[in-house]
């Protein structure tokens, strides 16, 4: 028996994974292109929705990220539903010409500096960073703050409006402002980590800890020579590893390594030492 939707489950799994892992990357490239936060966000959402329909029919394109970016980049042009559908159909055939993820410019550094701009309230900085670069849904971000989803949605939407209206630039700050602005980015990442660490119980909070480490790694890979970033990443990894080992805080710090090594949950440790020993 032939079905019109041959790969629905695989496709929806793939789309979920993409929305999680590549959202920040795609959004950062889209904002650079469309010069509008809200528009880019909406366009990516629409592209993901189109993907559910089209990939369900045709299977995954050669480069799903490239496909999403192209479809989303058309979001700035008002298109009738028909025209949009035919353009998308053409795109799905035109797979050979698509950008792979490596061809898509990585603008996440610009994006995180915009999300953590001091002109935004600090709660908003955290929420926007989680939503935009962490790949959390608005409901998940709201959960982290014990807010309801509508309130959080409004906060995020006000933030995007302010970025556009107040002219918060989409750029990595120059050397004169770098140190100060980096601090506000690192503060946001550490706040996220702390939120994950201090509430040890639920899955939601655990997820925040991992989210912070993910952001720390991302920053480290984008600016490998920045000691402040490495320091924060090492601090987070070592704290996380220690938590996994259930290490009581009264023991002398010099036993830390052995204790964690013996606990069988070395988790982040092998990754910590290179961070700490690198100058």
């Amino acid at each position, binding site marked *: 028996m032939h079905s019109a939707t041959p790969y629905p489950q695989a496709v929806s799994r793939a789309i979920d994974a993409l929305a999680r892992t590549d959202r920040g990357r795609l959004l950062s490239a889209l904002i650079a292109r469309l010069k509008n936060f809200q528009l880019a966000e909406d366009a990516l959402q629409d592209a993901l929705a189109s993907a559910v329909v089209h990939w369900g029919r045709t299977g995954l394109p050669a480069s799903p990220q490239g496909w999403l970016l192209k479809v989303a980049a058309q979001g700035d042009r008002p298109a009738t539903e028909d025209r949009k559908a035919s353009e998308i159909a053409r795109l799905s055939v035109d797979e050979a010409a698509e950008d792979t993820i490596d061809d898509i410019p990585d603008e996440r550094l610009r994006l995180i500096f915009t999300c953590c701009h001091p*002109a935004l309230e600090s709660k908003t900085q955290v929420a926007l960073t989680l939503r935009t670069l962490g790949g959390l849904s608005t409901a998940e971000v709201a959960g982290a703050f014990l807010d309801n989803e509508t309130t959080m949605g409004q906060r995020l939407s006000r933030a995007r409006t302010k970025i556009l209206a*107040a*002219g918060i630039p989409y750029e990595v700050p120059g050397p004169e402002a770098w140190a100060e602005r980096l601090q506000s980015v690192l503060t946001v990442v550490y706040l996220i980590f702390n939120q994950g660490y201090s509430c040890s119980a639920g899955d939601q909070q655990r997820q925040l800890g991992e989210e912070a480490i993910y952001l720390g790694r991302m920053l480290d890979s984008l600016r490998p020579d920045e000691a402040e970033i490495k320091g924060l990443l090492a601090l987070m990894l070592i704290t996380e590893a220690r938590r996994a080992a259930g290490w009581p805080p009264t023991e002398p710090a010099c036993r830390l390594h052995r204790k964690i090594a013996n606990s069988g949950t070395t988790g982040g440790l092998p990754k910590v030492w290179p961070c700490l020993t690198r100058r």
Partner: protein
Amino acid sequence: MMQGYFAFNETLKAAGAYVSGEGLQDIDTATSVRICSGKTETMDGPFAETKERLGGFYVMDIPNLDSALRYATMIPSAAYGTVEVRPLMDYNS
């Protein structure tokens, strides 16, 4: 005192960012007016009795908020008061 402002004006003009700017006289000189149920009410004093008052303004032509904030910190009154930065309305878009 005014020296700082003159220097700042020159910096702005040299950068091609200066559009206009004025200092306001003290609120002792203020008169407020409003129309209440069709009647004009005139009052002595500023529109609100607060410790902070608007001392003056600059209109600048600059590309983004970061640049605006950089110039704002050069305004002498930033050292003892607050400089608020806001974009102008754009009625053409």
